[in-house]
């Protein structure tokens, strides 16, 4: 199966996002790890590397920007997709500067997230060959 072996991390402090995404991405065959707070996600990132990370920007404590930084520092090949309710241009600019793969604002169709993940996956496999 094409998606097997693609390691995905989902971080969001809203339980709904995590559960829904996990459920749908697992059905599509991905290996999904979920965190509902930034702290735990960052701790994990220090130890292990992921292919793709989907994270919320605004979270209590450790936010999406911090996750982006950590992920990129540990493994520049990680693709980070950021979801946010407030698509502020300033934040977006900063995120892009720090190497975010894509920026999605809520409300977002789950299909859109899936497509962005597929796009990220394609880019990864393209850069490997």
């Amino acid at each position: 199966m094409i998606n097997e072996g693609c390691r995905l991390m989902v971080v969001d402090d809203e339980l709904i996002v995590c559960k829904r995404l996990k459920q749908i991405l697992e059905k599509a065959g991905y290996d999904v790890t979920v965190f509902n707070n930034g702290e735990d996600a960052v701790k994990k990132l220090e130890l292990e590397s992921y292919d793709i990370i989907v994270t919320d920007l605004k979270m209590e404590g450790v936010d999406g920007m911090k996750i982006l930084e950590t992920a990129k520092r540990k493994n520049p090949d990680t693709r980070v997709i950021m979801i946010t309710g407030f698509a502020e241009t300033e934040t977006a600019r900063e995120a892009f500067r720090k190497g975010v793969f894509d920026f999605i604002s809520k409300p977002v169709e789950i299909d859109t997230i899936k497509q962005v993940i597929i796009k990220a996956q394609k880019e990864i496999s393209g850069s490997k060959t």
Partner: protein
Amino acid sequence: MKNLLESFKKYFVKKTPATDVKLSVRIVFNRFRQVLDSNNRSLEIMADMGDKLGGNYIFDINYIKKSYSKLSDSVFQSIYNLNLLSQNKYLYLHRIFEKINDQISRILQGKAPLDLREPVLFYREISWEMSDEVGGKNAGLAELTNHLRLNVPEGFAITVGAFRDFVEYNRIEEKINALKQKYRKAAKRSHQESVMSAITFAEAGEHETAKEILREEDYLDDSFFWAVQDLFRKGKIPPYLETQLEKALEILRAKNGENCRIAVRSSAEREDLEFSFAGQFETLLNVPADLKQIEKAYKEVLSSLYSAGAISYKDLIMPKDKPMMAMSVGCVKMVNSQVSGVMYSSDPNDLNNDVVIISANWGLGKTVVDGSVDADYYIVLKEEPYEILDRKVGGKKLAAVAVKDGGIKEIGVSEEKQRAQCLADEQIRDLARQAVLIEHYMKKPQDIEWAIDEKGEIFILQSRPLKIVAPLSGAAINITASLEKYSVIMENQGKIARRGVGAGRVFILKRMEDLQNFIPGSVLVARHDSSHFIKIMPKASAIITDIGTPTSHMANIAREFQVPTIVNTGIGTSILKHGDEITVDADDNRIYAGIVKELLKYRITEDMILMETDEFRLLKKILRYITPLNLIDPLLESFTPEGCKTYHDIIRFIHEKAIAELVDIDRYKEVLRNNIAVRLDVPVPTGIFIIDIGGGLDLKEDKNEASFDEITSIPFRAIVKGMMHPGVWHSEAISMKINDFMSSMLKMPDISGMSYLGENVAVVSREYVNLSLRFGYHFNMMDCYCSENIKDNHVYFRFVGGATDITKRSRRAELLGSILREFNMRTNIKGDLIIARTDNITRLEMEELLDYLGRLIAYTRQLDALLYDEQAVKYYARNFLEENYRLE
């Protein structure tokens, strides 16, 4: 509020011209377009919001607030525009609008809406959107009886609102806070004790409580909860609630006798929805239907919120930053149970087992529910003919029975009955059938309490989600691989309106009437979206349409009923075969041949947590005041501003009234005088004058006649084409048995001079026609919009007869009605008036339909005199549908 209204009024009186000024047709039409525009905008926002309930989106509270404010602006615009058009006939709508706004604002602020303050509601009055007010258990029972028509004992709910009033009336919240202070101190204990107690809790699996004890924070011991329970038991019922309760009890007593007995059951706010609180809250059985006794039982049930068992859920019952958990209570008539028990619609230990599990004992269900007796046990295959796979007749030494003075007791069972199977095989199968129906409707395996009365009738007492002991393992969730063995019939056709998975036999809907033959559990496959599907929605496994949008009214309803739905597939009705088994995966937009068990199981274990998040619930709650449509029939007396309960109603009302303004025939007289109109010059004598308000005609020279080729209005051209269809327009006089007024019917308007106030008028633009025809005493109006944008397209057809005797008139209406229904139009007939409408169809289909309607108008012009009897109505209707237009 009143001031606001006053200022609105002043505003409008100032802004709009005084009434009784005749507006020019162009102005009228422009204002009409404005109404349509703002209405369409509102419908789009509404649809977009409804769409978010389909499970395809991730959204947050900002989205809800923003959309609501946009929508509210747009509805305001519509009301404003209608008043411009009608010269302030409908100022009162502003007041209705404000009332609805008020409710929504309350909800957004976390308060209960005002209109849900009804303290007592009978099950027949309860609908899905009230589950927050009556609790999951009551709402579920109401759905089973109202939608699935299952037997549920008669009864009523005492609402969450009543609970809040009771709490407020007795100042219970204040008192609880005081108790917290008192017992927090009392709860201080030695370290040794704490550790021991924490260990006990930890061993019982109550890790959170154990941690709390060790942290010594907020720990409240049992005596606190006992004290709180006492507050409820000693509380007084507010007088207004007492009155309502007595009224409700009177109704039950009047129907079921003075001695009728009641079961008083808890139905907590989120009980059975998210948390099962299984068995934590009290149920009191066999309570006499007497006010004092019921009040006592009510308070006892309320107090069980703080029972020892419920303490484990105390963070839910007393959340730190939210109001305390509320409880609704159900009071239902006791079933005189001969046999009762519990059934599971699926095997909680192994979802791969396609069986229903039933346990039963003599008497009341208590012995089975609490497991105190060795009950009968049946395993039934989950499909027709519901074969009984296994049965075990239990020892059944005891049975619970009602006691004369109230309450219940356990008695010994005769040896003969102990050995007997307490259900007949046919009853077992009937029970299983109902279990499957309920599971199907609830979209989740169910844990159902049932009873059978002395007449052998099955009653459903309660149904809640079954706790699955062994969910599918990780390997089973990863189902992509196992799906490869199934063949895909359709993939990525159309749009998903409601996600999910459903399977069953294809039911192709050819005519609306066939809905009544819909087989429960089938997949409905139809050409168009239709809100009429609401009738079968509770029983449909999935819905597929060729043409439609995820934003239609039907899509909204599908989301309410959680029916997996794919719309606008284009090819559904042609590719799928009636009666074939299919599986619809509306998550991935794929339709498989046969039943894909892996997907169905996946659906069962799927976490429906989405439906239970705060955002989702909030959106659903405010949509209650936005999307439901109550004003359907403009002929009903309730079709008034006061009848508008939702934004959708307001929009609907505005639409209807805007059209009414437009077709006000008097307006055209002036126009005709002013020589704006041109005569339609086609081979048949239609006597139609055309007023072009933009792009409807392309006249080759400056003249006051338009040929067929010069019509550029899409809908008007299609209608005229139909009128000109060979053979439909009969100019020869019909042999007249009745000579009363036929001559008047055949008479065409005198067109000798433009001073004639013609009554056959078409107001046209490129995409629009409003056609008013008067042949003799018959008045026919059509309002059509036809463009590339499916959502804007509509046909509104109205016919009012006149003359001849009343029976003939309604035969004409009957004839038209039966033909219009064949065209899949929604048709209302009232005496001599017919209103038929359709919308949401493509331009091509519109043109085809309008062509037929043109033919219909022409064909039926002279038909009255021939409609001697019912036979004739059928005869001519059939002829017309077979395109045989001869009159004989």
